[in-house]
């Protein structure tokens, strides 16, 4: 089981802030493929990966990172703090 979090317009497109998933995806990219296959709203959210960022257990990571041992995956657009 893995917690998947969505922020900003990713959250709005998918329509929920977080969900708990059962997955055997070995990488972030494989997890995204699983999600995109599920429903159109995921396809809309993940259409352009260059406009997305991913954090694994609250550390910025990349789409080819392995998911083994990860408890929390978060997807969001580039940050606009400050």
């Amino acid at each position: 089981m893995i917690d998947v979090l969505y922020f900003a317009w990713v959250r709005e497109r998918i329509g929920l802030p977080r969900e708990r998933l059962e997955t055997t995806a070995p990488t972030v990219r494989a997890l995204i493929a699983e999600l995109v296959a599920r429903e159109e709203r995921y396809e809309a959210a993940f259409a352009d990966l260059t406009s997305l960022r991913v954090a694994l257990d609250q550390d910025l990571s990349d789409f080819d990172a392995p998911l083994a041992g990860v408890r929390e995956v978060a997807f969001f657009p580039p940050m606009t703090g400050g």
Partner: protein
Amino acid sequence: MRLSVQTEAFDLGAESNAFASGTKAGAIVTFTGIVRDNCGTLSAMQIEHYPGMTERAISAIMQDAITRWTLTDALVIHRHGLLTAGEPIMMVATAAPHRADAFAAAEFLMDYLKSRAPFWKKEIGADGADWVAAKQTDEDALSRWDKG
């Protein structure tokens, strides 16, 4: 060193005085970001963040600043939630024996907060709401701190 991620408004003057009185440094730099209403159409700004990661990311950036420069103290306050035009969004303060360190560390913290701390801004105007897009100039500003 103090970090506060909060919904409450903060008083720039009171925070500046508290920071300055707590340090023996000769040089203090502050940066304050204020909600702008460039076109006169902004009614509010919504700031979303990633609780947990926000504190983790900013603490790491502050630690990094303290190892890069000779600082005696650093402060980051960043709000989230709903803000209106004219309100302070966030502030950074640095204290150092020498002004070059205080300036560089404050700019470094700002560049990282802009592009690496998990905050997202949404501008809410009369005719709709839009997420603020990340800017290439902010990425460029960040890259100048890369260790060679």
